[in-house]
């Protein structure tokens, strides 16, 4: 049907695990990196496990290229070992009793290569990921970043057509994470097949993925490019991740009546119906007196219920109609003597409101 998906992955399936049901319909094209973003328990790892054949689907099917991997309807099921999949696990799962070389040679061997051929394949990947000097070490003697590279080399050495990465950077400390991230981006770019990258770190998804799927409660709640998702989050979870205030409401021209409390005036583009409104915390101006009418057209009262020091600013948690997070400078906190419990005025320009409909 769609030519670019000839060697791609399509998932249109339900997976039931205990009382939890994952229902996902998605596709990934060759060369594409799809980020799967979502909170713990959203079903991200379950999705990867189903694609790898570690859990069978309870309805629907999974195909890779023109091969059916799992079809609940027809009963077709390719065992994990028979799927051309490379899996990088969260804690890498390097075989502790084998050295790095044998770990990397494991897949070519298991897929039927003779020992010498498997070892030369392993040597190729060790060179490619800069691991040659570590070849004789055991996994216990590797740093986090090195283990991550070995896990990737081991997955790639089996010549997979699809790469699955489950939180590949979460076990690393912040210092090495950025380096490894840049390196991983290069290797993902070199990989010809589709890649699925599960993460709960929005930055990782933004940097590494071509496209992001947001998974919550076993459903895809948003799909789009990383910048779309970051600018126009569809759910509170994503809004919180990318640090935006998010409000659901009903638009009628220049006015949005919010579903909870409050009202926003927006630039009139003749919008009607249910909309989402995203506001950056730094776009909200905090003052102690009622602002005079100006270009900032939304003004409302709120009470400070929490204050958090971020790197160079202070984030105020404000209870009002609507409630909001607002960023102010430490100087402003001192000048306005802002304390928890204080009543303040909030203003935000209509043009600083990002208004969009969800489900697009």
């Amino acid at each position: 049907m769609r030519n670019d998906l000839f060697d791609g992955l399509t998932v249109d399936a339900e997976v039931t695990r205990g009382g939890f049901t994952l229902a996902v319909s998605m596709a990934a094209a060759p060369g594409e990196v799809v980020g799967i973003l979502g909170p713990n328990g959203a079903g991200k790892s379950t999705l990867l496990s189903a694609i790898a054949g570690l859990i069978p689907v309870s309805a629907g099917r999974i195909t890779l290229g023109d091969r059916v991997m799992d079809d609940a309807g027809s009963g077709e099921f390719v065992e994990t070992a028979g799927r051309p999949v490379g899996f990088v696990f969260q804690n890498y799962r390097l075989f502790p009793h084998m050295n790095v070389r044998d770990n990397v040679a494991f897949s070519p061997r298991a897929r039927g290569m003779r020992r010498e051929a498997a070892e030369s394949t392993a040597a190729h990947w060790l060179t490619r990921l800069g691991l040659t000097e570590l070849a004789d070490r055991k996994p216990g003697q590797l740093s986090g970043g090195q283990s991550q590279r070995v896990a990737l080399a081991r997955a790639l050495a089996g010549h997979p057509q699809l790469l699955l990465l489950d939180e590949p950077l979460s076990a690393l400390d912040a210092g090495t994470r950025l380096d490894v991230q840049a390196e991983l981006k290069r290797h993902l770019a070199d990989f010809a097949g589709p890649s699925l990258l599960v993460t709960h770190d929005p930055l990782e998804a933004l940097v590494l993925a071509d496209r992001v799927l947001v998974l919550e409660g076993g459903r895809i709640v948003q799909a789009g490019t990383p910048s779309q998702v970051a600018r126009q989050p569809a759910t509170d979870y994503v809004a919180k991740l990318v640090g935006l205030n998010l409000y659901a409401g009903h638009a009628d021209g220049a006015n949005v009546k919010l579903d909870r409390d409050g009202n926003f005036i927006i630039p009139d583009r003749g919008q009607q119906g249910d909309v989402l409104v995203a506001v950056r915390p730094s776009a909200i101006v905090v003052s102690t007196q009622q602002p005079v009418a100006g270009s900032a057209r939304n003004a409302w009262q709120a009470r400070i219920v929490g204050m958090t020091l971020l790197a160079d600013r202070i984030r105020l948690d404000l209870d009002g109609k609507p409630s909001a997070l607002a960023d102010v400078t430490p100087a402003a906190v001192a000048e306005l003597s802002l304390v928890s419990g204080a009543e303040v005025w909030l203003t935000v320009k209509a043009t600083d409101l990002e208004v969009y409909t969800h489900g697009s």
Partner: protein
Amino acid sequence: MPAPLLVPALVAVAFLVLPLAGLLIRAPWSGLGKALSGSDATQALVLSVWTASVSTAISLVIGTPLAWVLARTSFPGQRLLRALVTLPLVLPPVVGGVALLLAFSRVGLVGRYLDYWFGLTIPFTPLAVVMAETFVAMPFLIITVEGALRSADQGFEEAAATLGARRMTVFRRVTVPMIAPSLGAGAVLCWARALGEFGATITFAGSFPGQTETMPIAVYYALENDPNAAIALSLVLLLVSVVVLVSLRDRWLRRGPVL
């Protein structure tokens, strides 16, 4: 430390340690070589070592797969099966011997066919010694290995499957190496139990010197007519036990016994 606890504790220590001390004190140290070089003692030692080793090997070959089945699969009646195969742990060994005799004697359940088809008679042969020892000792290996399989991280096996390894390859190249320490511990435990086997062996295999008279049986009979030989043989078994305990120290001496 309160006396009501301390005093009984000391009594327990004395009770457990004094007999062993007595054995060491009474040992005919100067005539030890002579006592042991008696042909009966050497024969018994050789027989014990090879039968215990063969039953350990058999236990590894058939007990490990059974441990895997118990740990990694689920089917109706599995709990009952586990209870049945571990029953010899608590069963008086002599009862095991009687049971083996009923099954494998010439008129036994299985034995009559072995006799009829192959002309094979098991009881009172070295093969019977191996079977009696395996019957009593294999459950030690099974529960040790099953426990290791249960606590082993199955994530590694999943990883191996995603790398293209079929089930037997996973078992051979990932599962077995990862539980190797427990396999070793289970084998040592199994071997020690087989070496000390008395009740089932004497019931099912009898006590023919050179054929079925193992060390514990030799000790028992030597006590009547050659106490020095009995003590010397006991010392050898004690030494073996100490070596076994030391080799299992990480598992047994650090915490309470973990089976």
